[in-house]
């Protein structure tokens, strides 16, 4: 493994770089040996990837391998060795999935399209059919007490062959392989362990016509009471037309978006991964069946992120302002109790809220029922489900905003307020003119980060109600509280009509552009990029 070798290398390199570098030392040799061993195993892995048709993964592994070799063999790259393990892991498990997602978004990868074209062609070419004419044998069947069958076949020249399922044909003489004496037609009277079936028994035997005798590649099947015939490949692949041609019917199955399809719409299974250019994206933006649910999902996605941010920030800020007082009694205790929601893993609290909001049984529903004689259906009404999600998110996140706001408040100089009071500004004016603008400068980036986080807040949506209540009449499952990322999850992992990785990846790319645009705006707005450049 590449990551095992490298932690020791900085030390050895550091020593040798300082010593005279021309002599070959023991650490050098050890490092070289490790590198060779690592390369050898990597090449073996690469080879396996290739043979399985995992080309993108193989390419990524190869690039990383080359990179590691360059870094370990060159003296100038010494500082990089300190971060080599991290870089390799980042390349493999963070960057590669991003690139792979991009690639998948331009393909039909999904149910029925999971393998490479070569593999699909190979599988389709294995299909056989029983030709109505062509090379034929006469046959006689033998059956064992256990219910196994063998055939005695004779070609037109009268040569006899013994055919058992899954084994190649043999041409035994009497006495060999338990074959007894031949009768007048050249058929053995007996075969050891088997009983010869007479013509009527053989013709009425239900199993016999289903069995393929002989090797799998050239198997033989019974065609009629008189004849058995060798099975022939059903399809022939025509490279020029990129099409499969049926030998039985003559139908042509052309490669249409990763499936060999005939003109009447019949498709050959399996299909394969093929580039379909922008079809996934086109579907995302223009498909009429999808437009309805997608539009609603996107609208709710933005609304959810925005309302979450506003509510959580407002409550957090209000609390921070209320208790922004050095002398406030029990300040430390109050803070500790208020951050409790933040200390419980979010997944657990979402599940707890799911229990508490349970209609009829949950404590909140029962409480409201007792007080007002009515309680909202948190899970089945789309608007109340949305309210519930926002409420839970408020509970989960306000402590965070409280913490960052109280930190930021303390950094605002009291002089501003003193000056404002001299000018006669009231409390509201002070808040809108001084506190909020200064606070936003400090916590602005965190607010944007929080918006982005909520934009993809999969856990909350998925665990609370799995995106439900479901929308009616959508082509793929979608719910009223679904956001894009939970919709993607459904497409990729739970869709009842088969997974569609390609389309899921395309939506992912769209989300990425939305999130990317927001983040870019953040960099611009806060001059973060320039600061970064100055600091490095």
């Amino acid at each position, binding site marked *: 493994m590449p990551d095992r070798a490298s932690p020791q290398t900085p030390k050895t390199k550091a020593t040798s770089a300082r010593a005279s570098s021309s002599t070959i030392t023991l650490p050098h040799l050890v490092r070289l040996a490790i590198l060779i061993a690592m390369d050898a195993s990597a090449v073996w892995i690469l080879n396996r990837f290739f043979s399985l048709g995992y080309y993108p993964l193989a390419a990524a592994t190869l690039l990383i391998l080359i990179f590691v070799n360059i870094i370990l063999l060159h003296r100038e790259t010494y500082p990089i060795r300190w971060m080599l393990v991290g*870089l390799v892991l980042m390349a493999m*498990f963070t*960057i590669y999935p991003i690139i792979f997602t991009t690639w998948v978004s331009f393909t039909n990868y999904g149910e029925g399209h999971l393998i490479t074209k070569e593999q699909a062609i190979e599988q389709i070419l294995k299909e056989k059919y029983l030709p109505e004419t062509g090379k034929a044998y006469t046959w006689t069947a033998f059956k064992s007490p256990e219910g196994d069958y063998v055939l005695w076949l004779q070609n037109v020249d009268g040569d006899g062959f013994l055919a058992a399922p899954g084994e190649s044909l043999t041409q035994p003489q009497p006495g060999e392989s338990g074959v007894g004496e031949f009768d007048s037609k050249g058929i053995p009277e007996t075969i050891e362990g088997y009983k010869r079936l007479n013509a009527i028994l053989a013709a009425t035997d239900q199993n016999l016509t289903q069995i393929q005798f002989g090797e799998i590649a050239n198997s033989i099947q019974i065609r009629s009471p008189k004849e058995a015939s060798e099975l022939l490949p059903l399809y022939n692949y025509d490279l020029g037309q990129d099409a499969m041609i049926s030998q039985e019917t003559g139908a042509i199955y052309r490669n249409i978006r990763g499936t060999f399809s005939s003109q009447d719409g019949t498709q050959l299974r399996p299909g394969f991964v093929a580039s379909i250019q922008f079809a996934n994206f086109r579907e995302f933006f223009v498909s009429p069946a999808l437009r309805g649910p997608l539009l609603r999902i996107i609208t709710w996605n933005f609304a959810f992120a925005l309302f979450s941010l506003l509510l959580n920030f407002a409550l957090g800020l209000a609390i921070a302002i209320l208790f922004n007082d050095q002398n406030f009694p029990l300040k430390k205790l109050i803070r500790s109790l208020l951050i409790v*929601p933040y200390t419980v893993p979010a*997944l657990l609290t979402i*599940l707890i809220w799911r229990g508490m909001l349970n209609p009829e049984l949950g404590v909140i529903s029962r409480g409201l029922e007792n007080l007002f004689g009515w309680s909202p259906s948190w899970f089945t009404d789309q608007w109340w489900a949305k309210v519930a999600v926002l409420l839970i998110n408020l509970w989960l996140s306000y402590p965070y905003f409280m913490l960052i706001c109280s930190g930021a408040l303390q950094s605002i100089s009291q002089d501003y307020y003193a000056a404002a*009071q001299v000018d006669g500004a009231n409390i509201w004016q002070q808040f809108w003119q001084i506190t909020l603008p200064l606070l936003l400068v400090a916590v602005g*980036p965190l607010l944007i980060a929080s918006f982005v986080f909520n934009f993809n807040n999969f856990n909350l949506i998925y665990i609370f109600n799995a995106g439900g209540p479901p929308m009616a009449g959508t082509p793929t499952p979608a719910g009223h509280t679904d956001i894009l990322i939970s919709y993607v999850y459904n497409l990729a992992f739970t869709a009842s009509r088969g997974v569609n990785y390609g389309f899921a990846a395309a939506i*992912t790319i769209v989300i990425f552009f939305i999130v990317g645009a927001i983040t870019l705006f953040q960099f611009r707005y806060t001059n973060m990029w320039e600061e970064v450049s100055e600091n490095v």
Partner: protein
Amino acid sequence: MSSMTSVKRMRTSIKAQYNVSIGIRLIIALLLIVFSIFPILWVVSASLNPTGSLATQKLIPDNPGLENFRILMTSGQFPFWRWFGNSLKIATITSVLSLSITTIAGYAFSRFRFRGRQTMLKLILLIQVFPALLALVATFLMISQLGDVLPAIGLNTHASLILVYLGGAMGINIWLMKGFLDTIPRDIDESAMVEGATDWQIFTRLILPLLRPILIVISILNYIGTYGEFILARVLLKSSEQYTLMVGLQVFAGAQFNQRWGVFAAGALIGALPIMIIYLALQDQIVGGLTQGAVKE
């Protein structure tokens, strides 16, 4: 705030008004605290309620007992301890390895000058824009392909999950670490270098001890994040005995939630406990870490 400022100015005359204000704010605080801890109290009560179902729960159970905990510990169908152990193991290994990667790389970024250094730092920042969650499908496919060749890091293994978590180790924490390292004067390094110490010796013997505060913050945040992570674990781990606690409890709550409420509450309580203890004990360090960058001193 304004009320505070005015109080400072007219301390004696408005002392009474100030007390009223404090009183009102204490009442508000009380309401907020009820909002904050009610769900937790409710779960504590549920876990102690021997009837164990959602419908029959009261805030103060009639015959409180540890029945739910007993069921949780002994249930063969849902290996709670196994899940808990898996979570602790994965979170510990991930945070230790991730911390090592971050620290060593942060040191190189802070102390060495090399070509591509700025580009790499910016690249690390830029990659954060792409939320790891979005690559979920690709990560799943990659791990399943890797597993066909190397089953040890394929689907349904803890190793694969840890590796994916570690893929994010070269993240925003590098910036935190580098920022902290930059504040340690380079004179220390240089004087040691004159004595003939190697970079590695300087790093481990001199710099590392000085990094303690930031090491604690990063490793704790990492630990908490890994412990509570759900979706990657949900997608990569397939069999019940491999689940982390979060996945296990979610699956457990998936069916017959109403009847299992009491046992779930007991599990949730035990599961939340380690993190709550860490948080409340190390509040100040964690808050400092969270608000890093928010407040510029």
